[in-house]
């Protein structure tokens, strides 16, 4: 079983995220980290390999420094990493990013492609369906329980109305929910070994996509940045026994009842 896991380097949670007013893109100059919910996808891939054998390949697109984030996933137990890094890919939107990832995945011909639930920087939670359409393979998303039975992937997921169980023949694209597992911490041995694992960096030219990513390959634009609508003043009070009365007075005054 060859499993590809699509992962992303995002600004570390401790970094104050900001948008560069010039490029109107996220400022990615600070400390990076592996996107938190991608850890669930990496964990799931390693578990499947541990049960069935095979290989776990990380596939990512980002700045050259994304190798640091990939190393964490390698330390967890992934076997090797492929990073598409090219200045011409900066500012790629969904159509452009999915085009690049699909091409990189085609080179690997995996049996299973895993995605995490959402990216913490762009709040994106849609990429897998675009990649699946380009690869012309079935997609299962928001999967909270995944079983690989022979030549099929079976996933259970929560929807607005309850639970659906969906089955699809391999190769398939599966986006897992962060409820699927508890990602392991890398062992010391894993951390030491990660540096010597194969890491390949590809350019857009290597993928035959020169000029097809970044702004020329994108179909969306960022026009303007502004402050969000203000909620107005807020009142905070310590309960001295009269809080219930105060709430009632507050909501009555605003005609909310």
């Amino acid at each position, binding site marked *: 079983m060859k499993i590809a896991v699509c992962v992303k380097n995002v600004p570390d949670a401790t970094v104050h995220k900001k*948008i560069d007013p010039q490029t109107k893109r996220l400022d990615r100059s600070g400390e990076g980290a592996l996107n938190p919910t991608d850890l669930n996808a990496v964990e799931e891939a390693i578990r499947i390999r541990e049960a069935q054998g095979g290989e776990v390949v990380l596939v990512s697109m980002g700045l050259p420094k994304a190798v640091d984030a990939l190393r964490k996933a390698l330390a967890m137990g992934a076997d090797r990493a492929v990073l598409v890094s090219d200045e011409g890919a900066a500012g790629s*939107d*969904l*159509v452009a990013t*999915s*085009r690049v990832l699909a091409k990189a995945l085609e080179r690997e011909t995996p049996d299973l492609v895993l995605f995490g639930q959402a990216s913490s920087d762009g*709040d994106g939670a*849609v*990429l897998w*369906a*675009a990649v699946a*359409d380009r690869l*012309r*393979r*079935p*997609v*299962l*998303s*928001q999967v909270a329980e995944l079983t690989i039975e022979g030549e099929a992937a*079976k996933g*259970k997921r*929560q*929807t*607005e*109305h*309850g*639970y*659906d*169980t*969906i*089955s*699809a*023949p391999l190769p398939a694209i599966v986006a897992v929910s*962060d409820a699927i597992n508890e990602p392991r911490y890398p062992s010391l041995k894993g951390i030491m070994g990660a540096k010597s694992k194969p890491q390949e960096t590809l350019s857009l030219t290597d993928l035959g996509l020169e000029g097809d990513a970044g702004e020329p390959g*994108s*179909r*969306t*634009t960022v*026009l*303007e*940045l*502004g*402050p*969000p*609508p203000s*909620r107005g003043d*807020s*009142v*905070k*009070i*310590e*309960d001295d026994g009269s*809080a*219930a*009365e*105060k*709430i009632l007075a*507050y*909501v009555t005054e605003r005609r909310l*009842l």
Partner: protein
Amino acid sequence: MRFLVFLEHHEGQLEKGGLGVLSKAASLGDAEGVVLGAGAAEAAARAGAFGAAKVYACEDEALASPLPQPRIDALASLVEKTGAEAVLFGASVLAADVAAGLAARLEAGLNWDLVDLEVADGELVGKRPALSDTVLVDVGWSDSPRLALVRSGALDPAESGGSAEVETFEATFSEFSTLATLVDQTQEESSGPSIEDADVIVAGGRGLGSPEAFSLLEELAAALGGAVAATRAVVDAGWYPYATQVGQTGKTVAPKLYIACGISGAIQHKVGMQGSGTIVAINKDANAPIFDFCDLGIVGDLHQVVPKLTELVRARG
């Protein structure tokens, strides 16, 4: 601008999310709708009241299950046929995958998590909160068709009383689109008004201390004629049904009044309820993040405050 709005239906009813988007589209230009799956034609007729002049319906067997890929096929052919300049979706588990797959298929731009849309100088502009909603970004499209996924609960349906012409259409499906199959489905039911429809929501988090404490919230919600919602943490712990979960992996709600009880206000919950008209928070921890974005914050014990508030509301009659 000519809009095509993807309308989902469940148990014969069109979903509120899609209808909110439809009402907005009708206010910006010519709006048409599309309903896919069993019972589509019957449900489609009701979209006229929300501003659709015409609604396309396809009831092909391939669309029977709530799976995205056959819908991408159907929409791709419909967009080609109608020449829609913008295709809009209200966010849901299904719609997000349909929108993204359609973007790849049509090489079209998709902007997501929008809270509003407007037309400025003849161009469509989306309003998108970013970076944990600290920035509001105006986003656009460089080409047609423009695809947009609107945050659930962001736009309210507005009944205009019109009627729609329903046109059924045939779709052909790619071989790979029908490989995934639904093998099992279980429905979750919760009593009382649904959290999407309620004007008042009383929500509970880990600070309740136990699943039994939800009864305090149910009593308050009943007195206020509202619904009870829950955070991811307590749903995961099995205290309350998933159908009531508000937040990133649950529903986005925008009631007139949101009373958050024992909820810390983690970002994943915040994104699901910050569109509420007025937010009242009750929490023991004075440093809880919820106090940064509520309108009225009570630092206190919800086990004291909530029953007392219920009593006062009841006494008020």
